[in-house]
């Protein structure tokens, strides 16, 4: 009853008000999760890009991009509710997702049901893209577990660590990584996975599981965790004798929160490296300059000021690709925009040059070439490891 009325009202306004009607872009993130910075990073990237787009005249003949955020606190149920809200919003063309794969995985049936284009710029579980939807409304400009896990295992091998233990979160994200390990192990002999330990959401200690892996002969621990659990592990490891501390090769979930602050000085007592897709320290000059020019207006003076850098960079690039897809679609129709995303030609982004970003067969914008290992610097900045 209300919807048709509203539509009628909007239609009547078109002749003289079309230029002002914004095109909405949603962000569904873990804004309300304490110590988390990932959702804020995504928002920052989207806003910087949207600012640039709007300053360049917006989309669809002058319509500004308007950003709508919703908080899911990393809880799937809240995320599902958010998707429903976004789906109900007029002129909303797509939703950016946050860090937590489990949330996105739980949202998939809803996305499938409501046909809202979903842009994953952090969450890495394979199934987010390999979701069986036809057409597929999910697009990713981010890491993928089946890429990240082999890379991390190879990193162990490179460092001569032949036996590794897996410490995984007992969620769909953890299982996604386990699947990646199994796939890798099927064809690679090293490193050998000597043991796997699972921890549950809200476990308050991980040291016993860590010790079990070490006792099983693990020379390194492949960690799939978010910032809070990782901080717990690091603090517990730092309390162990030096001989009992093995290197930790971590998935990047830890970079989505205030991990350095939570782990404290313990972080520098442990050999802790983390996989990344991008580093501002390695960024190409021209796109970086363009980015920083706008980012300064959001309080970013130096690249060191950027928290959760991959989230910012991915979101920034994705927003620009989305804007081009909207133009390509010529309307805010979600199906049209979805289809257009597969048709955006080459795009010169911050992370890389996308040529093209997506195709109907490939909804992953990044590949193994972008992967790198990084460490936390004392000031908290994430810097690439020297190769």
């Amino acid at each position, binding site marked *: 009853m209300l919807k048709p009325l509203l539509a009628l009202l909007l239609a009547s306004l078109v002749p003289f008000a079309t230029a002002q009607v914004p095109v909405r872009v949603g962000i569904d993130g873990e804004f309300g999760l*304490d110590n*988390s910075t990932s959702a804020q990073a995504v928002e920052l990237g989207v806003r910087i890009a949207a600012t640039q787009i709007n300053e360049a005249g917006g989309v669809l003949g002058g319509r500004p991009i308007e950003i709508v955020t919703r908080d899911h606190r990393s*809880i*799937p*149920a809240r995320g599902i509710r958010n998707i429903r809200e976004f789906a109900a919003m007029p002129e909303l063309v797509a939703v950016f997702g946050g860090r937590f794969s489990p949330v996105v995985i*739980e949202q998939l049936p809803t996305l499938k049901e409501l046909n809202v284009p979903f842009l994953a710029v952090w969450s890495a579980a394979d199934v987010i893209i390999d979701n069986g939807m036809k057409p597929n409304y999910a697009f990713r400009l981010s890491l993928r577990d089946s890429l990240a896990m082999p890379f991390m295992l190879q990193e162990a091998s490179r460092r001569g660590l032949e036996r590794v233990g897996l410490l995984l979160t*007992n969620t769909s994200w953890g299982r996604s990584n386990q699947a990646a390990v199994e796939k890798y192990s099927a064809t690679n002999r090293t490193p050998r996975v000597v043991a796997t330990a699972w921890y549950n959401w*809200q*476990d308050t200690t991980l040291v016993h599981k860590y010790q079990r892996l070490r006792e099983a002969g693990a020379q390194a621990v492949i960690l799939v965790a978010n910032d809070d659990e990782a901080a717990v592990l690091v603090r517990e490891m730092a309390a162990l004798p030096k001989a009992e501390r093995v290197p930790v090769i971590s998935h990047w979930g830890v970079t989505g929160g205030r991990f350095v602050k939570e782990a404290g000085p313990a972080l520098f007592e442990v050999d802790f490296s983390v996989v990344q897709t991008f580093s501002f320290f390695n960024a190409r000059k021209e796109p970086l300059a363009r980015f920083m020019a706008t980012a300064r207006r959001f309080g970013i003076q130096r690249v060191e000021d950027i928290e959760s850098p991959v989230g910012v960079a991915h979101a920034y690039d994705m927003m620009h690709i989305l804007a081009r897809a909207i133009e390509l679609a010529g309307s805010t129709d979600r199906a049209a925009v979805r289809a257009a995303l597969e048709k955006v030609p080459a795009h010169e982004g911050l992370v890389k040059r996308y040529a093209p970003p997506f195709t109907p067969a490939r909804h992953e914008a990044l590949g193994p070439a972008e992967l790198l290992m990084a460490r936390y610097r004392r000031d908290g900045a994430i810097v690439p490891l020297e190769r």
Partner: protein
Amino acid sequence: MLRLLPRSLARRFALAAAGLAAGALLVTSAASWWLIERQRNDALAELSARERHFHAAAAGGQLQAIAARMAEVAASTILATGLVDSAGRETYLAPFLAGIRQVNGVPVHVLFTDFEGKTIASNGLGRFNEAERDWLAAQLVLGRAGAVILPGVQGAQLVAMEPLVYRRTPSPEGALLYKVNLADVHGGGSMRLEWGPEAAGEAARAPALGLAVPPVFQPLQFRMRGPFEAPAQAIGAAPEYVAVLALALGLFGAVVLAGLGLARLLTGDLRRLQGFSAQVITSGLSDERAPESGSAEVAGLAQSINRMLDRLHEQQQRKDEFLAMLAHELRNPLAPIAHSLELLKRARGDGELSAQARATMERQVRHLVRLVDDLLDVSRITRGHLELRRSRVTLASVLEQAVEACRAQIDAAGHALEISAPPAALAVEADPVRLVQVVSNLLNNAAKYTRPGGRIVLEACAQHGEARIRVRDTGMGIAPEMLDRVFDLFTRGEASNDPGASGLGIGLTLARRLVELHGGTLEARSEGLGRGSEFIVRLPLLEAPEAPAPLPVEEPPRPAAGRRVLVVDDNRDAAATLAALLQLTGNQARVAYDGAEAIAAAAEYRPEVVLLDIGLPKVDGYEVCRAMRAQPGGRERLIVALTGWGQDQDRRRSEQAGFNAHLVKPADYSSLARILAASPPGAQPTTETSARGRASAPRGR
């Protein structure tokens, strides 16, 4: 009440003892009963409290266990995982929840929901209805654990919610909703689990005890109430009251029997005494005396009875003696009177002989009168009826009058009387007539117990603030053992020198009593038989002398003649002689012998004066007087009471009846003549006359 008691003292004691014992038994039984009942009630209350405590603890324990288990489940990582990971929920979440279908035997319905209250999983025991879901939604908004009582199909249900809290987010991300049928929570027996605000009056039905429950349930105010019926059977039947009663009755009977025997034993001496008393009454006085043995009280009683018997015996003896003496004393004057009468008959014309006979008769009659007066006085004093008319009296006047009264006797015995006159101002507060009587008695005695020609000394003086009157003689004296007894009634000297003039042994008794009535003492002294005796009267002295009151001057009786007098007396001789005497002195006189005759005579004869005896047969003197007053001219009539009754109340009574004057028999003619003279013919007698008549009437010496 007392009439209901048995007559026997022993039985009364027994009854009293039995009554007291029964009372004590009753009180003891009642107290024991009460104590037992109280202890029993206390025990029951204690038992109830324990039962209540037990059930409260059991129920509280169940609720605590449920809350603790649910909190534990809510905090489990399994549920936490279930919140973020739907994959495999069926494989781990449902079995996990299905494993907690009951806690401590209480079935629990469990529902695991998301942050909005949407179902994630349940333990499959049953569904939650709309109201329960709505409550959960509201509770989730509050964001904290809570509980509520909601109606369910099987009665009230405790519905509670435990939030799933993630420390990195500000509000619950899920909830564990659970419910239990409160009927499943331990109640038991007569106990009832209650909750919510207490209804008024509930507490009166049965006490309640609050349950110790976890904070989440505390606002529900769970409490255990009961028991609603006393667990009487729990501690056995009531005490065997019948046995107690039988025992009490048996004890009571034993006490009664023992009391009877004891009372009999204890009252043995009393009953012996009673037997003795009964024997004394039936067989008369004898020398036998009650045994003074047994208990102190009974021995004392026996002693008193014996003293009384002694005294009774003694008094009887004295009375016998007195009667013998009285007969003798009364007969003594009769012989000379009879002789003189005979002499008067024969000595016609012989004036000297007649005069001698008359003098003898007069003397003897006076003696008789004094004898009777003294007897009457002693009687009055003994009964406490004598009244003194005190006034200021000089000793000199007293001595003078006493000597005057006794002079004839002293002179007749040829005694020498020495009078040591007191100072004129020496005075006492006394009834002059009585004091004169005392002194004359003493003088009389001295004369009587002194051989003729003896010496009698009378003196009065003031000494140590007292007035003293001493009468000393050279007579036969008093044996030392008799000194104490001379004042006893009917005691008289053993050997009198003048048996003819001897008295009844009442003179000294009378004298001493009169002195004592005046607040003084009378003492007897003697150095022994034959060595004379001395009597000393001591009286309180009046300090400030006044002008000595003039001695009452006896007005010589004026001739009272020409009156019409009616003499009424049932003693015909008395009436006739008085009428003859009145006629002899120039009056007209008539006699009547009873009241009715007197009234009739008065109406017909119209006397000016009526001399009326009060103790008349049929109609008494008072009635006659009133009747006469009512007759024409009766008010002006002089009516004089002539009676043997001389007490003050008698005088008042006669005055009230309308008598003008009151004379006590035997009235001497001079008193009568004074009254007649003071009341001129046809005139009312003055009150003064009446008073004087009264004052002088009883005495005739």
